C-alpha cells in the first residue's frame, strides 16, 4: 500500500506518494531528479549518499522514504550553485580536494554539519566528522585542508 509523505527538501515543500519499500536515496535521485546525491555501497559504509535530515548527516541508502515524512532534507543542490557556491564548495575546488568527485557531495554535507555546530574544529574533529565518507582518490589530506580553509573563511565572514 502506497503512502503519502510530505517533506521540505532544499527549502521546497514536496508531496509524494511512495511505496513503503522505497529508499530516500532513490526518491531523491529518480523522483526528484537531484542526482548530486550518489549511490555508492548501498550498505551505509561509504557515505556517498549522505544527506542532511533536520541538519544531521544520515545515509539516504538506508533511510526509508516513508520515514522522511515531515522532515527537512538538504542535499548538495541545496547549499550552493556553480554561480554562487557555498564556501566549502569553493574551498574544495581551490584546494584540489576534488578528484573523481564521487564522494564530494557527501563529504561536503558532512563537513557542513560539522561547521554548523563547531565553526573552529580541530584536525581530529574534522577527521571524526568525515570518517563516514570514503574517498578513494585524494588520501584525505586536501579534503581536510579544504575544510580548514572554509572554516577560517566562514568564521571571518561572521565577524
Amino acid at each position, binding site marked *: 500500500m502506497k503512502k503519502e509523505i510530505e517533506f521540505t527538501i532544499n527549502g521546497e515543500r514536496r508531496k509524494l506518494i511512495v511505496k*513503503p*519499500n522505497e529508499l530516500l536515496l532513490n526518491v531523491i535521485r529518480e523522483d526528484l531528479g537531484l542526482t548530486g546525491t550518489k549511490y555508492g555501497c*548501498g550498505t551505509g559504509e561509504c557515505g556517498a549518499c549522505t544527506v542532511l535530515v533536520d541538519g544531521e*548527516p544520515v545515509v539516504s541508502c538506508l533511510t*526509508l522514504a*516513508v520515514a522522511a515524512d515531515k522532515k527537512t532534507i538538504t542535499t548538495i543542490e541545496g547549499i550552493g550553485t556553480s554561480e554562487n557556491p557555498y564556501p566549502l564548495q569553493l574551498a574544495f575546488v581551490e584546494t584540489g580536494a576534488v578528484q573523481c568527485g564521487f564522494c564530494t557531495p557527501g563529504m561536503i554535507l*558532512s563537513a557542513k554539519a560539522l561547521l554548523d555546530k563547531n565553526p573552529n574544529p580541530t584536525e581530529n574533529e574534522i577527521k571524526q566528522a568525515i570518517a563516514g565518507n570514503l574517498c578513494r582518490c585524494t588520501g584525505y589530506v586536501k579534503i581536510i585542508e579544504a575544510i580548514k580553509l572554509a572554516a577560517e573563511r566562514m568564521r571571518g565572514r561572521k565577524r
Partner: protein
Amino acid sequence: MGTRILLNDFEYFEPETISDAITILAKYRKDAKLIAGGTDLLVDMKKGKIKPKYLVNLMKILDLRYITKDKRGLRIGATTTFREITASKLIKREYPLLFEAAEAMGTVQIRNMATIGGNICNAIPSAEIPPALVALDAVAKIAGRRGERSLPLEEFLMGIGKIALKSGELLTEVYARSPPPRSGTAFLKLSRTTADLATLNVAVRVTLEKNGACKEARVVVGGGVGPTLIRSKKAEALLKGKVLKEPLIEKAAQAASAQLKPRPTSIRASPLYKIEVCKVLVKRALLKALERTKAGGAR
C-alpha cells in the same frame, strides 16, 4: 543481490504507543519485524537475508526515546540514538563509559540513525555499547502482552543474533546502575579504522573501598570473542579485596584473555592475536579506570 533497492514488499506501520506496537506484533508474530534506525536491518533486507511481510517502525513512539536519571541509575529509552547518547551532558559527565562506547560505534551518519535498542537487539558480538552496559550491571526492560519484565543485559544477550525476547515482546529501556562512589571506568576499542566493527572491545569498572582495596570489579570483553560478549568473573574475583597493583592487574588481564573463544574463521584478526591483544587492552583499561577512581566526580 544488489544493494540499490529493497526488493521485498511489506506492509508498513508507525505505531505511536508501545501498546499499539505490541498489538501489531501479537497479530503478525514471526512475519513482523521491528525497525528503529534501520542501519542493520535494511542491509539484511537488501541482501535478502530477511523478508518481513510487516515492518513496524518504532521511531514515532515518543515514550521510547529518552535519557533520564533516577536515584540508582540511568534510564535510556530503546530508540534513543547513539547521537543523542553522545550529545547528552549527563552521560558525558556521569557515565563516561557509556559516552566512550557510544562514540566508538560506527560513523557520524550511523550514530545519527542507529539506536541503543536496535544495537542491543541485533546482538552482533562486536557491538560496543553492550560491554559498557554490562560493566554497569545494566538491566533490559521488556514489554509484552502480559505486561513488563526485566532481565540483566548479560542474560538478555544469548548469542549471535539471539536475544531473550519472546514473540510479541519488545525491548523498551536499558537501565544502567550508577557507579558507586570511588568507582572508575574505561572503554577501549581496537579496530582497523574508526568506522569498522571492533576487533576487540573492552569495558571495565573498578570500585574501591575506603581503604583503597578493590571492593568490586567488572571486566567485560566483546568483539567476536565468542557468541556474545564475555564477562570475566575470574578476572573480577582476582581483583576483589586486593589493592590494585600492576602485577595483579596483569594477572587479571591474563585470566580474562584465557576465557576468550574467538572463532578460527574470525575475519578481523586471528584468535591468537585477539587473545594477546586482550591482555594488553584489559590491563590498560584497568589502569585507566583505577586512575579515574582518584578523579572523584568523573568515573
